[in-house]
């Protein structure tokens, strides 16, 4: 009786765990199907080309114009800028924490970075709007501080904790023997860190970077507060931009369910989904390649 009961218990737990796994996949599928159902109507009505490469976003005019090229470029510009800032600093910080910092400093820095991750995005956006924006405006002598660069710097702060903590884990996971072997061969501390440890941890660091970028491209609130939201094709990073996410967030409340504006916002959702899918795909490919 008893062994039977135990087996039953094990079976229940096993099923519960696999159920959780299945649920997450089903939810992703359901979300994607829902996006397709609501958004595809727009492609039929406006045409994929006019939607993706149209230069004007005037969703509530008569007749409305749904061209998301300025929004896509806005998102890419802000994300690219944020990556340029956060990736080198994040990786360097991770190397410092894992390899160089004395244990006490390491603990302090780890806690500090976790705290950075805990700040709500709306607070970071608020700080960006009130302090960073005016500062950049004076620094570059530009007409307004609400620009793509302001968004990039703000988002770099939000991507940094993800990049640092995951990259740091990857570096710490490099076997101790690698370091010992390198030192025994006469390598200096720096040679060991850069040529051996950083190289061995590369797949993990790449995953860290991709997760950081994923966080940035999906971020909405902070971006909406600091980038100015002008739907125009940006010519430089010192101009206001409107991102895909900010557009959906700002306009969703107003749309009539089933209308073409509503469908257009869902179509933007599909575009975002595809972009993150590509980013994940590239990361996955690179990970597998570097493992061989």
């Amino acid at each position, binding site marked *: 009786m008893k062994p039977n009961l135990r087996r039953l218990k094990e079976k229940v737990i096993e*099923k519960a765990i*696999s*159920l959780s796994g*299945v*649920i997450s996949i*089903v*939810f992703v599928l*359901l979300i994607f199907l829902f996006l397709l159902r609501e958004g595809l109507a727009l492609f039929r009505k406006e045409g994929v080309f006019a939607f993706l490469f149209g230069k*004007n976003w*005037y*969703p*509530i*005019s008569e007749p409305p114009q749904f061209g998301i090229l*300025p929004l896509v470029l806005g998102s890419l510009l802000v994300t690219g800028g944020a990556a340029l800032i956060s990736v080198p600093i994040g990786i360097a910080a991770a190397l410092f924490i894992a390899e160089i910092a004395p244990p006490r400093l390491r603990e302090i820095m780890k806690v500090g970075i976790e705290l950075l991750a805990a700040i709500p995005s709306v607070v970071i956006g608020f700080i960006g*709007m*009130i302090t960073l924006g*005016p500062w950049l*405006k004076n620094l570059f002598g530009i*007409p*307004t*501080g*609400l620009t793509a660069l302001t968004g990039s710097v703000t988002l770099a702060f939000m991507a940094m904790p993800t990049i640092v903590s995951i990259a740091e884990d990857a570096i710490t996971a490099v076997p101790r023997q690698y370091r010992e072997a390198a030192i025994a061969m006469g390598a200096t501390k720096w040679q060991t860190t850069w040529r051996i440890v950083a190289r061995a941890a590369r797949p993990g660091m790449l995953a860290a970077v991709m997760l950081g970028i994923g966080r940035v491209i999906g971020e909405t609130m902070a971006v*909406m*507060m600091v980038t*100015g*939201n*002008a*739907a*125009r094709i940006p010519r430089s990073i010192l*101009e*206001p931009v*409107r991102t895909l996410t900010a557009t959906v967030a*700002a*306009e969703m*409340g*107003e*749309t*009539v*369910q089933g209308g073409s504006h509503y469908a257009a916002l869902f179509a933007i959702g599909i575009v975002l989904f595809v972009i993150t899918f590509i980013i994940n795909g590239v990361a996955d490919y690179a990970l597998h390649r570097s493992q061989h």
Partner: protein
Amino acid sequence: MNVKMIVYVMMLGFAIAAGGCSRKQSAANSLQIKGSDTMVNLGQAWAEAFMKIEPKISVAVTGGGSGTGIASLLAKTCDIAECSRELKAEEIALGKQKGFEPRQIIVALDGLAVIVHPANPVSRLTLGQLAQIFTGSIRDWKDVGGTPGPIVVLSREVNSGTHVYFKEHVLRRGKVDGKEEFAPDALLLPSSQAIADEVAQNPAAIGYYGMGYVTSKQKAVAVALDAAAPYVEPTIANVLAKTYPISRPLLFVTHGQPQGPVDRFIDFVLSPEGQKIVSRLDFVPVKP
């Protein structure tokens, strides 16, 4: 076995989705009011005063924009939509489709102030100049008598009734088939407060919002219908006298003829006491 499990999970998913869709009918003694950001403070003040008289009725007021309020009224998730523009024909048609005639009640008037930084030498503009600035055909302050430098145009987001009103009455001068649009490089900010903050610290900026939001950190410009007409300041007296060119009605929209608590609340809002709150918040009462 696995297939069965997937079916179970799918059913669970659909059940949750279906549950989320079922509409909440608000309880008899609670009022949900939603809509215009311009009116949210006003609605709040009315609600507080009203709940003192009728403690059994609880009134909740939220913003989000006129469009948001109407979408919510149509979905029956609120009882009153606050709206700073008149309803569009298609919105009325949608209401009829859902089985009610949206009823619009004017509860106050509002003057839209055009605001600049206090240090900006420009203190008066015509409607024509405003239209040119906001559509982007005038791009430098020197063209309207200011210090040379680019104009930073600030607007509300498209879900705002103020955005729609400004486009229809200033950019398009009331022409129904007008094609004028906000300049594509106009910054669209999510709230009146965001515009107030940006104008307060940027001498090159120009924006607009309900005159109740103007503080000493911004300067409201006087506006004239055209160069020959007198320039008029956005004050309560001028809106009442209908001499200020950019003023508009503020509306409540309900599901058909207001009843029960909705009706009692609207009665209160239109009472002398309710209209006193309107003037206290720098809007203009309908019944002076």
